[in-house]
């Protein structure tokens, strides 16, 4: 167990105009858990993709066992014993669990024979080892998100990897599954495997990790032994300033109730009788783990998966929403979580993206008004200080933060009464992040009712006037905006009485 298992020196990577990694150095010893910490968009995922060979770095070197490996391809990375559990499971939806595991573990030799029985056994064992009750024959598309996560973990285990990367593996796991996972991780460590562990849950890092490296803004802020650190110091490292400082002050302009739900459910959407109220000028933060049903709730409100029971009120009047069209006409706006797939149409100019939701109103008789559109775009580019070379710029020429602003602009253009934000700052660099926060706050000031979903705990705490915590498809508790992290997290994890 001597020396570095993995050694990265000043690795750089850019996407178009965005510089995801600005020369990061990082090392991993055999038999240690090295936590990688950083806000969304700090460059963690990119770093991982570089290590797994999914991305080719633009600069820097990668050494394994002190040997320079040059350009890594996914295949060669696997041969070198690198396995990764991605945030979104990278599995074949059409194939069975056994096959997925098999394909991942077998060497890519085109004409070798597939031994199904052994593959099946192997799959079974691996799944048992992490205590997952999944049939090896199930088609992956039929599995839930956390189940797919577990399959991923099983793959990594089976690969007998010497370097295992876990990108927020517990994000969508239940407590039981999480504990099993920790056991697995510890076992791996015992066997001299090096583990790169990425998580937003500081408590996990203190339970599990030996060392922690903090990334910020594509740069490594420093590596420390975990036992020399505490939450506060870590957070300080992560965000570079004290939390309270970076969020615009929340003055509760408690207007009258604009929007409210009563026993609002969408069974196959996974939303169970939710009740909530949002006042004019108020930001209601929605905390909870991934898979707690927050996005599902938003989509149900917005009419993508229409509700099957419960009531919805807008300005006191009961309304029904069966499609996004209804929502838009009612003045409900939804800035979706998956910016690249739902928020912005990357190939189209940002001007066209901004008017996408107001075709009816903005283009009377469906005739396009290019001049007016350009003007509108220019206004938003100015107001939201979007960094782009013009209304003509296609979405994919913008950085994540600016894409998010475009997506925001699209919905501001609809002059909404209720604004639903789903992970508004996910994958956004720190600069743009605080700008977006300011925008949200000023919108609230202007009398909008804002519902803000976020997995980024500091954000929820910093922005919200009130915090709703969701678990298993319903709002379990509503806390005041000034609550502290442990309380919220406890509520999210469903630990009774913790903190509060």
């Amino acid at each position, binding site marked *: 167990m001597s020396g570095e298992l993995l050694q990265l020196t000043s690795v*750089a990577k*850019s*996407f*178009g*105009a*965005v*510089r995801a990694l*600005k020369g990061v150095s990082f090392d991993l010893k055999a038999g240690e858990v090295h936590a990688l910490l950083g806000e969304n968009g700090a460059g963690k995922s990119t770093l991982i993709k570089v290590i797994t060979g999914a991305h080719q770095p*633009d*600069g820097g070197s990668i050494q394994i066992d002190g040997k320079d490996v040059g350009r890594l391809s996914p295949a060669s990375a696997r041969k070198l014993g690198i396995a990764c559990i991605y945030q979104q499971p990278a599995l074949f939806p059409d194939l069975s669990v056994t096959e997925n595991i098999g394909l991942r573990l077998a060497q890519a030799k085109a004409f070798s024979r597939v031994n199904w029985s052994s593959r099946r056994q192997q799959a079974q064992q691996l799944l048992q080892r992490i205590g997952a009750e999944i049939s090896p024959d199930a088609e992956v598309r039929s599995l839930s998100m956390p189940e797919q996560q577990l399959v991923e973990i099983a793959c990594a285990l089976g690969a007998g990897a010497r370097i295992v990367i876990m990108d927020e593996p517990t994000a969508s796991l239940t407590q039981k599954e999480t504990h099993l996972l920790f056991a697995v991780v510890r076992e791996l460590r015992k066997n001299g495997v090096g583990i790169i562990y990425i998580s937003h849950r500081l408590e996990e890092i203190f339970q599990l990790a030996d060392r922690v490296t903090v990334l910020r*803004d594509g740069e490594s802020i420093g590596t420390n032994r975990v036992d020399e650190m505490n939450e506060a110091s870590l957070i300080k490292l992560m965000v570079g300033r004290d939390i309270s400082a970076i969020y615009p002050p929340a003055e509760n302009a408690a207007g009258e109730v604009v929007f409210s739900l009563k026993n609002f459910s969408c069974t196959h959407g996974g939303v169970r009788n939710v009740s909530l109220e949002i006042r004019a000028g108020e930001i209601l933060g929605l905390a909870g783990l991934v898979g707690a049903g927050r996005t599902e709730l938003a989509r149900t409100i917005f009419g*993508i998966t229409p509700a099957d029971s419960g009531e919805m009120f807008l300005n006191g009047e009961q309304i029904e929403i069966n*499609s*996004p*069209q209804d*929502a*838009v006409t009612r003045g409900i706006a*939804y800035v*979706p979580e998956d910016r690249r*797939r*739902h*928020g*912005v*149409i*990357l*190939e*189209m*100019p940002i001007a*066209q993206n901004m008017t*996408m*939701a107001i*075709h009816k109103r903005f*283009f009377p008789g*469906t*005739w*396009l008004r290019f001049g007016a559109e350009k003007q509108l775009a220019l206004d938003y580019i100015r107001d939201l200080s979007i*960094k782009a*070379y013009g209304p*003509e*710029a*296609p979405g994919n*020429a913008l*950085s994540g933060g600016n894409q998010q602003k475009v997506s925001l602009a*699209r919905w501001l253009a609809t002059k909404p009464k209720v604004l639903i934000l789903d992970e508004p700052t996910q994958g956004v*660099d720190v*600069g743009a992040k605080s700008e977006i926060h300011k925008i949200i706050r000023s919108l609230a000031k202007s009398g909008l009712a804002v519902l803000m979903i976020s997995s980024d705990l500091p954000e929820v705490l910093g922005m919200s006037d009130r915090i709703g915590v969701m678990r298993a498809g319903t709002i379990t508790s509503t806390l005041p905006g000034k609550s502290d992290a442990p309380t919220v997290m406890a509520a999210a994890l469903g630990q009774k009485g913790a903190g509060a």
Partner: protein
Amino acid sequence: MNAKQPTWKQNLFRHEAILLVVLIAEWIFFDAIGRNFGTYDNSCDILRHSCEIGLLALAMTPIILTGGIDLSVGSLLGLCAILFGKFWRDAHLPIPVAALCTLGVGALAGGLNAALITRLRLPPLIVTLGTFSLFRGLAEAITQGVDTFTNFPNSFLFLGQERWLGIPAQAPIFIGAVIFFWLLVHQTTYGRTFRALGFAPEGVRFAGIPVERRIAMTYVLAGIISAIAAIIYTARLGQAKADAGNGYELYAITAVVLGGTSIFGGTGSVHGTLLGVAAIAVLQSGIVHALQPSEMAGMLTGALLILALTSSVLPKMISGLRARKSALKLSKPIA
């Protein structure tokens, strides 16, 4: 910053420019070696001959823009042609009424495609492959193959065979369709939605736009246009038979793709399609005037198609590499 020009538009521009050059080159070439090619008469013939396929290609453009495809237009042309004949001869309807009924049939047939594709979320390729057989089959079943409709009144044949104000009588309809589709695709929110659908159907749904209705619209339109094409076709040939429009769907798709519309949807243009149609039509006529066997036309069309595709890929590859390099240099102003 050298990312100043959006590349997708760049390619579009490039492609249509290239195609225009090709077209002009064809024209000059055949005018040089072909007998009486560049004459006004011949130009009119080229226009007349490309009307039906031109119409189908126009209708196909929005469909392909949305990332769909319609293999049934040719068969539908056949079905509409013979039904038009039946309405006129057997149901004794006056020509205009018969024509209207035919349009109705076209719309219905298009609606069938649309319903299967949007309601049941079936892949357009398969659905229209099925209706491709179905429509042709119905046409043959109704006429039992033998029945041929002919002896249409001259007033009607005028539409297909005579000149009006010096241009082929069917040209105004075609030009009308061109204008309609150009405005639809390039000047209205519909066209914009079609593109968006081609790029990211989910994204469009999240923008509160009725996706199904828009998609359905393109197929119904295609149905109606096929019906119009069927009527013009009947007028041009002076007969309606179950084999009308055999294989037209492939000509139309070829023209659209040659015109620079991506088969995956999103990018493309009506004027591109128009250029595509023209390039093929000129080629076919030119080959005959150059006294070359007409097989040549087919082979050259195929070759042209492959060239067009590759020419649209290579610049992307290059610009991709360039972007990668430039990113390193110009990151300062961004961060």
